[in-house]
């Protein structure tokens, strides 16, 4: 596992917190533990790979409230909920809100580690997608206004002729702009260009 990965444990129970830190430490994970949700929020923003292991029932800000709060902040680190006594409505709510997993105490270490792996993978993917989207956005921003007009019409399935007619330019000019769009967007085919266009939408 990568040391760049960080696991955040938020649980008001000291004993639970300590045991989790110990367990995750034993498998070589980098763990940071917090006694309350607020304490977690108060820390410096971390944008690396990782996940949050969050107790649902806590004094002060509860686990679910923290989840809502993080979504509002667009903080995408996956959350694994753990609870001493989980009810179905509670877990549904958590999962709907995008929780990675919902574990009921006590849980097996493998169960937790699998959840962590999954969450990390999830997080990695999220991060990759976000990176890709960012590149595509950068590429689309490099298009000239005329190129953009052509790009929108190409991905919507219009023929060069139709585009030329609509933009009142020659078909050939359309072909030029089309080639440049393909180049700038780093698309090797029309299909790829359409995929990229969907992502930026």
């Amino acid at each position, binding site marked *: 596992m990568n040391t760049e990965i960080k696991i955040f444990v938020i649980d008001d129970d000291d004993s639970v917190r300590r*045991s989790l830190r110990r367990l995750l430490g*034993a498998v070589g994970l980098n763990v940071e533990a917090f006694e309350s949700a607020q304490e977690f929020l108060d820390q410096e923003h971390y944008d690396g790979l990782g996940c949050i292991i969050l107790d649902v029932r806590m004094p002060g800000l509860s686990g679910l409230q923290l989840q809502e709060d993080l979504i509002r902040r667009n903080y995408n680190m996956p959350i694994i909920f753990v609870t*001493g*006594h989980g009810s179905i409505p509670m877990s549904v709510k958590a999962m709907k809100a995008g929780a990675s997993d919902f574990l009921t105490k006590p849980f097996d*270490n493998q169960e937790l580690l699998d959840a962590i792996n999954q969450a990390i993978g999830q997080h990695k993917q999220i991060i990759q997608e976000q990176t890709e989207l960012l590149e595509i956005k950068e590429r689309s921003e490099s298009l000239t206004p005329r190129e953009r007009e052509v790009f929108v019409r190409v991905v919507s399935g219009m023929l060069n002729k139709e585009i030329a007619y609509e933009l009142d330019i020659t078909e050939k000019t359309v072909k030029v702009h089309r080639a440049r769009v393909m180049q700038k967007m780093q698309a090797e085919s029309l299909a790829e260009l359409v995929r990229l266009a969907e992502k930026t939408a």
Partner: protein
Amino acid sequence: MREISEEKHPSILVISADTEEAAILKAELELSGYRDSVMATCDPEEALGAMEEHDVGLIVYHNPSKHTECIDLLNTLRPNYDIPVLLIADPEEAGQMETNATLLIPYAFGDFLNLVQNFLPSPLKRPRDRMRDAADMKEEEHKYRDLFDRASDMILLMDLDTHTIIDANEQAEVGYGYSREELIGMSLLQIVPRDQHISIWKNTRELAEGTKTLHAIERVHTRKDGSPIKVSVSASLFEYGGRRIFQDIIRDETERIQRAEELRRHREQLEEMVQERTKELAERLEFERIISAVSTNLVNVNDSQLYEEIGKVCLKIGEFFSTDSATILLFSEDKKKLIVYYDWIADDLDYAPHVSGEVSGLYPWSMERLLNDEVVQFSQIDELPEEAIQDKETFIEDKAKSILVIPLRLGGGIIGAFALGAIRSERIWNEALVPRLRVLGEIIVNDIQRRRLEKEGKKAEQALRENEEKYRTVVENANEAIVVAQDDMVKFANPEAVRLIGYTEDEIYSRPFIEFIHPDDRKMIYVGYLQNLKGKGIGVVDFRLVSKDGSIRWAYPDSTAITWEGRPATLNFLTDITERKQIEQELRHTQMYYTDFIDSSSDNVSYWKVPDGLRIDLPIEKQIEMLYHSSCIDANRACWEVWGFETKDEAIGKEYIEIIQERTFGQLFADFIENGYSLNNYETYELFHHGREYYGLMNIYGVVENGFLIRLWEADKDITEQKKAEEQIRELSQIIVQMKDAVIVAKGDVIEYVNDAFCDMYGYTKDEIIGQRGSIFSARTQEEEEALREKFSTALRGGPSTIEYKDRRKDGSVFWVSNTIGFIYTEDPHERHWLSVIRDITERKQSEEELRKMEEDSRQLQQELTHVARVSAMGELVASIAHEINQPLAATLNNAQAAQRFLDLDKPDLDEVRDILTDIAEDSKRASDTIQRLRSLLQKGETHRDALDMSETVQEILNLMKAEFSSRDISVKLDLASKLPSIFGDRIQLQQVLMNLVLNSCDAMMDIAPGLRELGIRTSADNSGNIMVVVRDSGSGIDDEEMEHMFEAFYTTKSDGIGMGLSISRSIIEAHGGRLWAENKQAKGTTFYFAIPSSTESESL
């Protein structure tokens, strides 16, 4: 046997217009020997028929004026028949017809009979001789003769057929006033008034037929002098010398009744007289003493002391007559003014005004009356006439209710008045007071007047003379004897004294006075005289004067020393008390008789007169019957009260049969007679007429004289109470026999008696069980046996005691009984008798058992309910509790797996592993603790009390609920006192209460903002030794209606609650001797309190 002549005798025909008279005449003639040969009729036709059919030898014709037809008839017929006619007629009737003889009404029966016999001798021989000469009598007859002569009652013996008296005793001579010679041969009818002749005729019939005996018949007979004599007559028939004779025993009741009446009256009179005389005497003496004292003192005082002296007199008079005021008034010389000289008013009457000065204008009417020498008096103010309006007004002002004013004279004129007044209440003035007061008043005013005249330098001779005259009159006319004694001689004696001493005046003045005194009293009187001379009065003692003729008179002296003609003398008032002395003497005798007689006895003592003629050889039945008619002569109070009378007089003269309800004395009298006319301690039962039952222990003695029982003495002790008690015991024993409860009487261990109920209950017959030991039907355990023995000894020491156990019936079935054991006291202290009253209590035992089961069931239900409530409350906590358990479990698992991983490393960090193990152990314990707590809370079962620290108990349950608070955003403020006194209680139940209260508080805060949810819990000890727990929330409070109902079962405001929480909580706290209540906080929220006594208090619970 009657001598009946063989030949047919002529008849007598009685004719009268008056049916009754005809019947009487017929009866009289029949009684006098003309039996069966007298015809009486009122009808002339019938008379004519009789004369034709019968041989009529005499016609007795009564009062013909009412019967003119008959006169004519007789006058016509008589010559034909030549029958003598005896006419009985009023004087004016006589001579209307020709007769052979005429008797004028009223006639004497003796004369009538003689005439009849002259005309027509009786067919029966009329005995004219005495019974027999003494010489002919046998010895037994002598006795009889003695008895006859000495009897205290009058006895007449008569020939039955002719009613001729053939013998009479001395008493009869005395009683009837005839000599014996006169009586013998006389007809009985002569001493009996005519209106009784018919009844004698009837009685004789009955007596002759033997259908009736006569006793104690009240009659009025006639003496020789014609006066009536009240008698009771008892008659009996016997044969003597071949003749049928009947004997009348006659008791002169006149005397008895009179004597009794006289005695009573006499006694009353005596008592009354003694009382009156004593009172009168005392009053008179006292008054006369006042007069003499006043006279003497007024002479002796000087002018300056006069007013004061008169004051004393007024006081004396006022007190003596019990008046409220006494006033001396004087008229002015011209008689125009009336002036108050002295006015006395009773000390305790401070509200009544004194009158003083001139009062002429105030009493004008009275003044006029007084000047006219008239007494002014009234008992009620309204008695004053209208014209006395001014006087009336003044008297009302004076507050006088009754007034008596007497004018006082000097010489010819009125010079003053003496007024007595009643202020407190109205009174009636005794007229007798007036002259006495007048004398007294006049003495006073005369003295005042005399002194005034002297003072004014005028000759007072006139007044003085008058006063002397006044004194002389008083003395001369005094009712009391007044004697002045000097030098052992009488120097002065007023007329009354002369009379009392009983010598002539000359004799009295010429002899030493001691000679007039009874020798026995002389010394006493002489000593008294000498003392009195020296002015030392001695006690007043009655003494005797012996008059010239030797008669003795009693005198009561009152003596004072005076100066007589310049030398010492004694002034003696002598009151004649002879009469009183005599009365006293008499009274003493009478009283002695009564007192000694019977009244002192607490027994019922009575004295009876047996009816005359109870000869002791009469048949017992006859004697008994006569005894019933014994009449009471005397009885003491105890006795007549028992009989039901109000006064003794009611009892006197009553017969036994009038006092007792029925003839219940038959056996008593029979035994009395058999036992020789006496009985000792004989038990009797009497039911008196007024309904009272009486048991007596009777002593009765008969006084037998000359073979007759004449008196009875009866003295009996009232044993009614005792008898009633015995009766009750009998009734009680009857109850025992009939009782539904079984009764056993045992001596020691052996059964002596059982009742029917016992046999029914146990199935034994009496024969089977009596004589057996009680253990035969016992199904008792060893312990019950011991308890029973204990009860026996309790019964012996104290009262009855009850025990319950099982007994066995004869058929072997066992049943529950309650046995009440009593000890029966008998005369022999060594014989212990026991009384057991046994009740079959099987049914009761069954219902008791059922009840016990029901209680048990309900207790279990209660427990289950409590448990359900607890589990239900914990249901609400289930998430929190699971959290609370899973937390340590999770930590443990994490730690264990972490440890494994550490150990898998090539170089395991053993220190780390050791830490992990420590944590694991702690977490495991934590989890197990929680589970333990949880389990105990969920446990069913008996309550179990221990000494508890309330703070710890609270902390424990809160630990379990921690997650709940956090999940509900409730902040908890704890204030738990340390070192609280322990309480004695059930931890689980108390924690259930706490859980309930805390959860309620949590629920109450859910509708307010999370940041405001605050729960406060506090424990403390108060001054009175209670441990107090307070659970406070910051919710919105409870409305009044909820507050009112929230401790009731099944009351809930929660959709999912069972509504038992607070109700059960309250019963739990109350079961701990505590109290649970709630209050709304003024600002916000609700506070629940409960307080439980600390263990020192509750240990005793």
